[in-house]
């Protein structure tokens, strides 16, 4: 069983999924593939995390799902972003960027400053 290379911060996976789905409606397999490709194999999402997350996002009304024919012709469950989901994604991305800025600021701070 392939373990994710990096332990994702809680909540990060949700954001990444929303981001991927924002590119266009896609099914679970495609979402997993794209997450891997975009992150250059950095994120390998285990199905045991992906599908619970997809269903959770759907339950919260951030994603909506629809069964339709996939590129191979077979029916698949396609997830797409709802308006609520788009707002949520914006909020999460903004939050994430603030967090990154803060961490970055903290890491770039001169080391001496931490001395009393």
């Amino acid at each position, binding site marked *: *069983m*392939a373990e994710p290379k990096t332990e994702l911060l*809680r909540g990060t996976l949700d954001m990444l999924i929303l981001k991927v789905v924002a590119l266009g409606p896609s*099914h*679970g*397999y495609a979402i*997993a593939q794209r997450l891997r490709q975009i992150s250059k194999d950095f994120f390998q999402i*285990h*199905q*045991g*995390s992906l*599908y*619970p*997350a997809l*269903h*959770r996002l759907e*339950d*919260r009304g951030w994603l909506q799902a629809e*069964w339709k024919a*996939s590129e*191979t012709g*077979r*029916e*698949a*469950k396609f997830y797409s972003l709802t308006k609520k989901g788009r707002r949520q994604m914006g909020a999460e991305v903004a939050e994430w960027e603030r967090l990154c800025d803060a961490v970055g600021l903290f890491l770039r701070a001169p080391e001496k400053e931490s001395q009393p």
Partner: protein
Amino acid sequence: MNWIRRAFRKSQGEKSLDKELQFHLDRQIADYVAAGVQPEEARRRARLEFGSLDSAKEEVRDTQWETRPENVFRDFRYAARSLRKDSRFTIVAVLALALGIGATTAIFSVVNAALARPLPYQDPSRLAWADEFMPHMNDWVVPNPEYTNWSTNNHTFEAIAAYDGGGQANLTGAGEAERIETTAITANFLTVLGILPVRGRAFLPDEDRPAGPPVALLADSLWRRKFHADSGIVGKSIELDGRFYAIVGVLPANFHFPDKLRDPQCLLPFQLPVKVDWGARSMHLVRVVGRLAPGVSFDQARADLTTLALQSNSAIPAPFVHMRDGLQVQVIPLHQKIVGDVRTALLVLLVAVVLVLLIACVNVANLQLVRTAGRHKELAVRAAIGASRARLIQQLLIEGTALAAMGGAAALVLAAIGVRFLRISLPATITQMGAISIDRPVLLFALAITCFTAILFGLAPAFRASKPDLNDALKDGGSFASGSYAQHGLRGALVAVEFTLAFLLLIGSGLLIRSFVRLSNVAPGFEPGNVLTVSTELPTAKYSGNPQRQAFFSQVLDHVRTLPGVRSAAVTTRLPFGRFWGSASFLVEGQPEPPRGTSPMVLNQEVSPDYFQTMRIPILAGRSFIPSDLAPDSHAVIVSAAFAQRSLPSGAPLSKRVRLGAPTDPWSVVVGVVGDVHYASLGVPPEPQVYLPYDGENSSLASLVVRTQQDPRGLASLVRAQFGAIDPAQPVFDITTMAQRLDDSIETPRFNMTLLAIFAAIALVLATIGIYGVVSYFVAQRTHEIGIRVALGAAPSDILRLVLGQGAVMIAVGLALGVAGSLVLTRYLAELLYSVGPVDPLTILSVAVLLILVALAACYFPAKRATRLDPMTALRYE
């Protein structure tokens, strides 16, 4: 785990999830194949990567519930999965609930039907039983002039009615001849009860006068059985003992006679004199039932009737008036009269029910505490990933409800079986009026209280899981933290309480079992094995004189004696444990004549010469009867040992003379002394008894006792046929074996004992489950600690001692409280005991030993498991 999913059928969402995951897997395989991997290998690799489909689905389902507060059905499914995971716990808890609720409901239904349910008459709270106590006769009897006096002169009753002592009659002319129960009632009797015949009418006021018309009312069952529910029955006639009675009506199907020992098939008018006449040559003893006027209390009614009774004294002829010295009148609710003397037994059972219900509640509470404490970590995790406290409570509530629902369903089944069992094993003395079925309010009460307990204690962890000790819980899996001392103390205390309650029940049933064993070991005074009994009553219309009756029975005896397998046969006018007996005043020769009406009384019965031999009653002195004793001038009697000892103390009893009956009656010579026989009951000492040779003199009712070589039941129909061969219109009744009669006579104590023993067994099982659960939990929680101990060199015996010590404390506390409680409570059982004191050291000791052994066994298995722990595994164990 599949059964429950199948039970819920695959939902739409479930199918969709299957399809979605399958799609993912297939695409993965297809991509590998496209990249040049062999199909076989591609499938293997994809599967490996994907992991188990089932576990992926499980995770989807599990993560969903935190966010779906609205989906109760899904919560139920989750609850089912969680209960299934803990299947051992679930089975035990369901069993505890079922036993607690089911058994208590069944017993309570019966108790309630017998004791608490209002009588099936109109406005039953105003129905009264009136009686007077004659110190001289040492008995409660009402002579008919008193009834007439009360009924016509009272100021406190709407109406007063009476019925007679009841009788039996030979019903002929409607199919096979049969003996049926009859009772005579006054014309207003049904009006007082508020009962109307469904066909025809009740008796008219002029029908219960002396020389009134022969009329009859039929019970519904007789009307259906013997008259094929003939809708034109009113106006036809019924033949009883050779007399014709015009049928005036049929009683309702649900009518019960207000006397639990009666079930008359036919009611006749009680033809009493209209005027109060205390000088009449013969009197009837009557039973009096009245309906109080609205607003009148039972005490007021008693004062009223007492005044009237004292007024009658002036009308009573001088020689008899002293008989009424110290007369008392009682007026009590009819309900109390009917259920009164079973009250103690029923209340004891009721207390037992409450104790079992309490034990069941304590047990379920305990099991829930044990189980949920083990889930502490799981709930902490759920709280950590965002489930609110309300959400956790909802989930635990639903789990508790699911558990309670399963327990409740099992309890329903058990209660239905229990009621059926009790209905058939209920002794005649407790048989109530009206049908017994599961008592709904009681069932609801028992369900409510135990299920409430289950749910309440199931919630316990929710209040801690969402609290700040979350970190602790996550860190060490709760192995030390959740087994906190206070919690463990509470569980231990609950188990101790269970043991106390179980101890009380075991003591109660132990005492009843001991007294029942003593009772059934009482020698009846005769040999009951291989004896058949059969009774008949020769109607006076047909068999008018002694010679006819005697001739009939000697013919029957001759026939029966020649049957194969019959050793001997005899006639008697009284059977052991029978309903019929006679008594007479007596005087021993040489003693002064007592004032009239104060002679001592003795039970007497007539027997044919072979009686003592057939019954195997030992002849202690003198001889048995011989045919010549039947000669008109012979006057031989045989007395029992008790009579000889009490009334013939001076010297040898043989050839003493006694006179039975009035001063004009002849003196009889004592020709033999026989052993005492328990005629009335095994529970009371045998009374003095005088035997006379059977000559048909005093009683048209007599019984045959037949000693056989083998099982007498095989001969029953042959013996019955002998009666028919002599007189086809002559029915017989009470065909049974002596062993059966003996058995029936101790039916009530056996019933009490059985019920209490069932309760005690349930209590023991529940208490054992309780202590097993708690000790197992102790071991599970302390696995880590035990591992350390073993690693540090503790021997298995040390571990055993550690674990057993846990149980021992609970047992000791429970037993101490139990002994103390039993010393206080068992005195209330005294009325039900026979030759065993309420504080019986042997019972206390054996119950204590039993309880200790069972409890130690329950602790031993988890303790043994603890000693086998591998220290390495145990240390790694979370």
